[in-house]
């Protein structure tokens, strides 16, 4: 039964040794180790939170970037559309103006040509009238043969022509 009987001396030493080791460990070892572990855990938690936040922020930025790109795209389309429209308008306007100008110039030219024609016709009429008067004078002054009449006419016409040529 010796094995089952506790011994006082051993209990005494065990109590002292265990108490000493327990107090040393409880004062110098466990607080340091458990404190470090806890601090590290908290640090990791905060870092994870920060990472999560950063991720969310990056996702937001990406979204924003996409939005900006989409806006720019839309703007581009709008601008191109506007540009095409204004180009068409400018070209159309120019064409219209050119057509108007052309019509105006043509009309002016026609008018001038008509005026000139009128003037030429008027002067030609005057010439013919003069020739007719001279012819009549010649006929009246002498008897002009057909040949002579022909020549006189040529002469008058030549005079007129040279006068016109001057």
């Amino acid at each position, binding site marked *: 039964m010796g094995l089952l009987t506790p011994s006082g*001396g051993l209990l005494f030493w065990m109590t002292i040794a265990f108490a000493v080791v327990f107090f040393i*460990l409880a004062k110098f*070892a*466990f607080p*340091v180790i*458990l404190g470090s572990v806890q601090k*590290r855990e908290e640090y990791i938690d905060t870092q994870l939170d920060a990472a999560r936040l950063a991720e969310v922020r990056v996702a937001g930025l990406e979204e924003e970037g996409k939005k900006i790109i989409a806006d720019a795209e839309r703007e581009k389309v709008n601008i191109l559309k506007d540009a095409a429209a204004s180009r068409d308008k400018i070209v159309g306007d120019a064409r219209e103006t050119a057509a108007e100008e052309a019509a105006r110039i043509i009309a002016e030219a026609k008018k001038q040509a008509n005026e000139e024609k009128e003037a030429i016709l008027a002067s030609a009429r005057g010439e013919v009238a003069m020739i007719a008067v001279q012819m009549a004078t010649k006929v009246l002054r002498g008897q002009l043969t057909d040949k002579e009449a022909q020549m006189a006419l040529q002469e008058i016409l030549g005079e007129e022509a040279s006068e016109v040529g001057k």
Partner: protein
Amino acid sequence: MMRRALIFAFAALLMLAAPQRLAASGHDGENFSPKEMVMEHLADSYEWHITSIKGRDIIVPLPVIVRSSTGWHVFSSDKICHPGATYYGLYIAHEGKYKDKIVEDVGGAQKRPIDLSLTKTACGAIFSLLVVMILFLVAAAAYKKRNEVDYCPKGLAGLMEWLISSILDSVIKPCVGSNWRKFAPYLLTAFFFIFVTNLLGLIPIFPAGANVTGNITITLFMAVMTLLAVNLFGSKHYYKEIFWPDVPIFLKAIPLMPLIEIIGIFTKPFALMMRLFANILAGHSIILSLACIIFVTVHMGAAVNGSMTAVALLFMIFMNCLELLVAFLQAYVFTMLSSVFIGLAQEGH
């Protein structure tokens, strides 16, 4: 490859024949008593017997501290440990009530003095506690040296942190509950003391190898510590459950339930004490008994002795592996049950 295997087999055969040679050269072979040898190891003693070589014992003497009728005496155990020795009227009883203890004769009657000797078990326990203390202080120093919040320790400190964290997270926190911080130092010290002591008990070389956690005094001490931790810090709710539990009044009028509960206060630590003691004691005695097979069969011829040596060795290897598991398991179970008892006493806090 073949040659190596042959050399190995030959060496193994030689080793199997070794105990016979050893026994033949020594005097132990003649009157070897396995029971005595096993009991000698399991029991506490005033000296630390390491081994015997050719009949000469190699012994580490330990201090004997006693207060007899003639006052305090402190002396080395080698003054008293050989047969027939007396010192200051003190001697070791070889039979009777105080077998293997220091006694003195006062008035014709054998009397036990106050005995505070640093026995083998006491030295073994102190050695284990020193190992535990050094392990933790070295680990803590690593943290103190690198006072950084994101410092993750390596080596010994890393190992200790892993062990501490796993015990904290798997046992102490869930079993004790929200108050775990208050009890963690005791529970961790208890776990590591039992674990380290169990492991050291498996190493057969001095200064390890003493039967410390297989000694009833040590387990009694650990159980009393748990008893104190449970009952000194018990909540009001815990004490109400003991003295005035929620049961029909006739179970309380004759204080049947309170009686059972009060007995329960003591049976729980008692179970802790017996479990650890019996497990470690059994492990040590099985391994030693297996070793004894070798020496018991010495006189039965080389063939029987050789084959029994092989069998005994195989079983000893197996038992040592098992004891390795038991070493952890018993420390774990002790800590877990202590945590549960403490946790139950903390309810309603």
